[in-house]
Every structure is written in C-alpha cells, then in structure tokens.
C-alpha cells in the first residue's frame, strides 16, 4: 500500500475534474438583494460594528445572509463603486471626488490625545501640541512635565484620524516629526502605554476603554473639554469623525433596509459596546 504522496498528485486530478462544474456553478450566483444576500467590505474600524449589527439583523430576518469583509476604507469605496460590494464601510466622511457615493453614518468616533498614565501633564494647549508634533519640543520639561524625551506617536498616511488631526491643528503632513507611526488604535494605545514619554492620538472610545481597564494611558482634554464618549455625544468635543456605510446612489431593497436598521435605535447598545458614539 504505502501512502504515495506522489501518486496523490495523480489521484487529485479526477477530484479537480469533479470540482470544476461546482466551481462554475458558484460563479453564476450573483448574490445580491433579490436572493437575500449582502456583501459589505471596507474599513476594519467599522467592520466589528457592522458584523454585530448584521448578526442581529440575520437573527431577525431568517434567510438573509450578510457577509462582512475588511480591507480598508479605500477598498470600501472602490468595491461600492464597482458593485463588488453592496455596501462599503468607510471610517471617514466622503471626499469631494466621491460624490457618486452616498454616505449613511451609523456612529461617531472622537479623537483623543493620550499620554502615559504616569505623565503629570494635565493638559496641553493647541500651540504646545503643534510644537510637539513639529518636533520643536524635545522633552516634557518644556511643557510642564518631567525631564524625559517626548516620543511623538503619529498615525499613518491617508487615515482619516490623521487628516482630522492635521485639519484641527492647522498642520501639514510634511511638518510632522514623528518618533513612531502607528496603524490602528490598539497599536497606538499599546505604544503609549509602554513608553512613559509618549504622546499620541487615537479613537476616544478605544482610549476610554483602555484607560478604565488598567492600561497605562490617560486622555488629555482638548481646548479645556475633557475627552470622553459623553462629550462627543453632546457635541461639545471638537474632534470627531463619522463611521459611514456608503452605497452607489440611493440604496435599494435589502441594502436599504439593512442601512435603515443600522441607523436605528435598536442597535445603539451594539454601538456603545464597541465604544463608539451612537447617532442621536
């Protein structure tokens, strides 16, 4: 007998021949609203929220299947445009050149400045933040802290958090002198929590969760307003972005129904459980 791994290659051929018709059959399945299937792709920030809302929707509407995939906000835009996805997930407002798409906000997310928990600094002015991020201030001593070098944590190019930050403080991306560049929020939180001299900016909700669960970070107020999901909700906090579901034109059928559900009060607990801010 002997398990002939080489003849396995020969044995595989009839199997592949059998699979081929199945593969082609799978190609014919368009899978859009008419058959009760939806495909969402895009931002990995929005994805966990969309997934949880989709699960609840599926439970209420048996026979409907909603698949959520990630790949980034740019993928969400591209796929919504090309029709690969029924709905795109985008963690920012739409740009002027994206006017062929319609955005439907399902939550808000603030952006908080965070420092290490051991850092005695209680607040920073806009000028101080600008100076720190431009690399003009080398140690915390200059802004009322200990004699410790400042580790500037910045977000990667193209992210909406970065663009909002730059817009709010009137900075250009080329002016920033970062010590560490991060991708997603948790990386930012862990980086700041591991370095007593670090300063960074991440999603308010994620930071709030971490700060209340024994992670060594602290949120700084912005323009005197404390950073929390509460202040983002009541609109007093100046820095926030929408989490959007985008469609090409007005959404029809199942897609429209799902989006309406995602924007309703029925899912506010899901939004809050992920530390985002529900819509009013």
């Amino acid at each position, binding site marked *: 007998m002997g398990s002939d791994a*080489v003849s396995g*290659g*020969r044995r595989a051929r009839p199997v592949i021949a059998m699979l081929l018709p199945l593969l082609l059959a799978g190609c014919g399945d368009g899978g859009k609203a008419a058959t009760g299937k939806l495909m969402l792709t895009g*931002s*990995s920030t929005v994805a966990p929220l969309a997934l949880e809302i989709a699960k609840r929707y599926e439970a209420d509407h048996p026979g409907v299947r909603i698949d959520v995939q990630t*790949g*980034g*906000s*740019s*993928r969400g*835009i*591209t796929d919504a445009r090309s029709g690969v996805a029924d709905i795109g997930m985008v963690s920012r407002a739409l740009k002027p050149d994206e006017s062929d798409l319609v955005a439907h906000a399902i939550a808000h997310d603030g952006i908080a400045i965070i420092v290490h928990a051991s850092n005695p600094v209680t607040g920073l002015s806009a000028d101080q933040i600008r100076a720190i991020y431009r690399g003009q201030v080398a140690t915390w001593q200059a802004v009322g802290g200990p004699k410790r*070098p400042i*580790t500037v944590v910045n977000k*990667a*190019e*193209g*992210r*909406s958090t970065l663009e909002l930050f730059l817009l709010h403080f009137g900075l*250009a*991306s*080329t002016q920033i002198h*970062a*010590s*560490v*560049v*991060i*991708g997603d929020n948790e*990386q930012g939180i*862990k*980086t700041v929590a*591991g*370095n*007593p*001299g*670090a300063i960074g900016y991440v999603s308010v909700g994620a930071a709030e969760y971490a700060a209340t669960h024994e992670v060594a970070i602290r949120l700084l107020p912005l323009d005197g307003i404390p950073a929390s999901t509460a202040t983002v909700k009541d609109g007093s906090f100046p820095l926030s972005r929408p989490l959007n579901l985008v469609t090409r034109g007005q959404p029809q059928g199942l897609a429209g129904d799902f989006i309406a559900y995602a924007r309703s009060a029925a899912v506010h607990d899901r939004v809050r459980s992920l530390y985002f801010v529900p819509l009013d």
Partner: protein
Amino acid sequence: MSTPGRSSPPDGDAALRAVTGLAARLSGTVVVGIALFVLWQAWPALQAVGPLRFVTDAGWHPLAQPAQFNLLPMLVASVAVTLGAMLLAGPLGLFTAIFMTDYAPPALARLLRGVVELLAGVPSVVYGLWGLVTLVPLLAAWQPPGASLLAGILVLALMILPTMVLASHAAIAGVAAEHRLTVAALGFSCAGSLWGVLLPAARAGLCGALLLSTTRALGETMAMLMVTGNVARMPDSLFAPARTLTANIALELAYAMDRHRAALFVGGLLLTALVLALVRLARGLGCAWRHA
C-alpha cells in the same frame, strides 16, 4: 520491467517524469503570476511618477502637494532588519541544529525539536504583539522610542529561528550514514568530523536553509509593522525607528487610492528585485544546488 543500460525509460518512468514535470512547471509559474500582478498594480505609479523619483525624491509623502515618493529609506530598513536578523538567527539556528543532531541526548533533542516545530506555526501577529507589549517597552526604557530597527531585528530573528533550525536540521540529518561511520572509523574528533566532513557534506541543504530564512525575513510584514516604529526616514542608528518595504505596503494600503496605492506596489517590485539579487548573490557565493 526495465533492462539495465536501456536508453529509453519504461512507460512507468515516462509517466512519472511527465507528472512531476507538470508539477514543476506549475510551481515555476506561480511566482511569474505574482510578479506580473505586482507589476500591473505598480504600473500607474511607474508611468506617472517615473522610476527614478522612487530613489531621488525628498522623502515619502505620497499625499502632500507635490507628492514625494522616495522608497530608499524603506529599502535600507528592510535590508538592515533582515541582515541583522540573519546575523543572529543564522549562527544560532545552525548551532541549535548541530546540537540536536550531535550533542543532545535523544530525549532532549526530541523535546527541542517539538518546541521549534510548534513555534514555526505561531502567527506573526503573536510575535509582533509580544514585541510591542513586552520588548519595545524594555527598549524604550533603555533608549526611546523603543520601537526601532533593533526591536525589529530581535523579533525577526526569533521568527525565522524555527525555519533556520528545522531546515538546517533536515540538511544535517540527511547526510549519509556512511559519512558518519567513516569519520568514526577514522577516529575523527566530534568537532573535527562535524566541521571537516559532515557540515560541508550538508552544504547544499544548509545553503537552502539560509536562503529560505533570509527571503522569509525579507517578506515579513505584520510583526515589523508592530515593532519597528514605521517612520519613513533613513534610520541613523540601531535605536532609530524605521519602516520596512513590507510594513509600508500594509500600513498605507487600507486607505490608499490610485497613484498612492500604485506607489506602494512599486515597493513590492523593489522587494522582488531585492530577493532576485539575493538569490544571485547566493549562487555567486557557491550555494549551488547539488544534483543527484
């Protein structure tokens, strides 16, 4: 049944040769497909920006007005991190493999092998997470910012150790039993037989292990993204943050559109060129594939 000395192989062998030849051709085609794909994705940027600017621009600012696309700092970071990791993991892996074949009591060798085989399957995110949460803070306390070339080198060395150890071990253990009997019969010392006979005999396999580990190191994405600091500037010391070509792609791809996205793929092309150069170098240094 074949007769010795017959020039054409019997049918069974012809079939074997055909099937395995097909497999080999298929294997050889995969990378061509990937290379073409990367070229296709990178083309818009190569056309719009021109290849020269990818090494001569002022920096990496793809969204600025005017956009800058210098990939050289990322290239240097990739090379530096890989070189450093190989300088650590190469000898460590080789000596661990030697330990397993020639010095360890059988039970210990089996245990060590089991542990290393286990770690070959641990995801890069786990290595990266450990690096971010445990190693980087330690380095930050020593020399801020902590997330640096050094962190990348240490984590990468750890990640490619299983490949290095297991591939080297397979190479050394595969050396014919006669070699070992011969050196024993001739009264070679342990180290003498090892360095004089066994390791040279295993040279092709060891070379393969080195090459496999090095290219794997060059292609590592997630862990590098988490521990090297991702600053797109030319690193000036081991403690400086840097961004590898792979991290560059992974970091910005999610939000990149059009020309920016294509520029990221040019980084992918650079990586392929780097690997090709590496393979040439290995051949040049005598890492020939021995034929049976």
